[in-house]
């Protein structure tokens, strides 16, 4: 269980613009082990999706990987040629995007999309692929899978479409799934179903999952470990229970207090002042210091060093109150 599937080391993504180079991902390192769900959480513009896109080699030019290494199952993949990367995508890395309607081909039946993926990546016969497609749909909980195999994406509801996308992502038996906001477009009651499905399938198959979301509640319920991102940097990394109950980084602390908790009553919500800096105006030093109530001169001078597991990228990490 402890074998590392994906290892990101000091990853930086840069976009050259007329006003200079912006760095949406800046020196990020984390590992994901087999059968583990790593939650990547942050607000919009934190670089969480950009890091995911870098892993699957889907950065839109002129964005490019400027530094760092990405290793998948002991093989370095950030230096692969386009053609090699294309073969890896879908086979080794499955993807689930936010909007299930735009990630399915509207002109192909879902059965065709599933078999095409399998025939491309697996060495199996057409008949075998057809059989596996039905099995895959059954596994993700689509009722009457054998009849619905010829249906088109528009004939499904949003939740069912997302199930199809998950079946597609898993059908070539990848070792890593990147799920970028998989439930943001869905209703609460359907979201719970999809998260449970993702959790169950990955546990059964030992697939590693990078779950990118802005919803701390989803992270708490689904993830094993969590990486909190802020302005392209990793703010905090650790086991989900530790990070959420005893956050060390002031940003995580503020984020945890921001959503209204059921126990808080009618009091004012805790709020973090200001907003995340724009990428072309990330402040010197720790990017969070203008919003941080604890900031000192050291924070303004230099960013805190990049971090290891269970630590926060902060010069003055908050004292861990031991949660019972």
């Amino acid at each position, binding site marked *: 269980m402890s074998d590392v599937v994906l290892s990101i080391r000091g990853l930086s993504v840069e976009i050259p613009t007329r006003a200079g180079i912006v760095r949406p991902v800046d020196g990020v390192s984390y590992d994901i082990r087999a059968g583990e769900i790593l939650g990547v959480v942050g607000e919009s513009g934190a670089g969480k999706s950009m890091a995911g896109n870098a892993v699957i080699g889907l950065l839109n030019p002129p964005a490019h990987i400027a530094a760092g290494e990405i290793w998948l199952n002991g093989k370095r993949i950030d230096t692969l040629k386009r053609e090699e990367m294309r073969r890896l995508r879908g086979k080794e890395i499955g993807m689930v995007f936010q909007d299930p309607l735009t990630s399915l081909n509207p002109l192909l039946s879902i059965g065709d999309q599933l078999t095409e993926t399998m025939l491309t990546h697996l060495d199996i016969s057409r008949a075998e692929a057809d059989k596996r497609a039905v099995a895959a749909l059954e596994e993700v909980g689509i009722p009457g899978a054998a009849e619905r195999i010829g249906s088109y994406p528009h004939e499904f509801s949003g939740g069912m479409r997302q199930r199809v996308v998950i079946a597609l992502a898993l059908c070539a038996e990848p070792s890593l799934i990147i799920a970028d906001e998989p439930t943001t477009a869905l*209703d*609460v*009651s359907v979201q719970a179903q999809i998260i449970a499905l993702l959790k169950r399938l990955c546990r059964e198959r030992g697939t590693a999952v990078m779950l990118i979301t802005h919803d701390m509640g989803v992270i708490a319920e689904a993830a094993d470990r969590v990486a909190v991102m802020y302005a392209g940097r990793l703010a905090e990394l650790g086991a989900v229970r530790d990070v959420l109950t005893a956050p060390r980084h002031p940003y995580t602390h503020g984020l945890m207090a*921001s*959503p209204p908790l*059921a126990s808080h009553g009618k009091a004012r919500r805790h709020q*973090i*002042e200001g907003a995340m800096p724009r990428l072309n105006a990330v402040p010197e030093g720790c990017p969070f210091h203008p919003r941080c109530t604890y900031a000192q001169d050291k924070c303004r001078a230099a960013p805190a060093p990049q971090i290891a597991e269970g630590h926060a990228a902060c010069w003055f990490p908050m004292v861990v109150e031991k949660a019972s």
Partner: protein
Amino acid sequence: MALISVSSLTRVFDVSKPWLNRVIERRAKAFLTAVSDVDFDVEERSTYALVGESGSGKSTIGRMLVGLLTPTSGSVEIHGINLATEADAGKIDKIRSDIQMIFQDPFASLNPRWRVRDIIVEPVAARGGDTTGMAERLLEQVGLSALDAGKFPHEFSGGQRQRICIARALSSEPKLIVCDEPTSALDVSVQAQVLNLMSDLKDNFGLTYVLISHDLTVVQHMADRIGVLYLGRLVEEASPEDLFSDTKHPYTQMLLEAAPRMDGFGREAELPEGEIPDPINPPTGCAFHPRCPIATDICKAERPVMRQIKNTRVACHLAE
């Protein structure tokens, strides 16, 4: 007297295909009942929240409250005046200036070619009112700088834009603001700022809010009364305390159970059954019965009426 009084409000949309398709494909006309027989009252200076998943009719109700849509049947009365049927144009005009709306997407609801000053004073300027210094004053009240009045919307972040929308809504000194998902498009840390601002303004200006949201936790702190909608029908209405601690309707229970919780580490929630049915062909009887864990025969046959149980109003045959 209640500020807003909504009684048996119904809105039906014609979603038929074009007539040629109907002739060739031999299809009947199709109607979608977005809101069906909804009753509620909103007290002055209170916050009433409408909560529901997509397709529950919450935005349609909001639009009927402000008069952007006319009801198919039933009525919305504001200060006892029904905007859809009132003949006296002067009275309608008076009521209209008391109502404002804040929309979900602050990127789509501000004109990109107008300066912030013009955007904010427009509700007053359109009626020929005096707007000197108004934009600057309002900007400071919503936590922006008076110097921002000369800028364009693209120079602001999402949270700041929503503050501009709030300033615009305040300019005509309304009594009622209908907020349609005011924080859904915003980041978590910014959501708290906007909600806190809205609470402060409510106290300062004596406002009444109708807050539309899909997220029960967002409205929990703001609302004095919460109405839960399912498939265009009001299924439960209660104060936040009662709704969260003594939930009556099985749908509300399902919503609360399904919402991801920050302290739910590795929680295996009891999963909701199925999805929201097609509103063009809603289920018979209680709309929730196909997904309801406790449904009996009467639920399939008869639509439950609103009943008062202690301080909660609930539309369920089996609630007690």
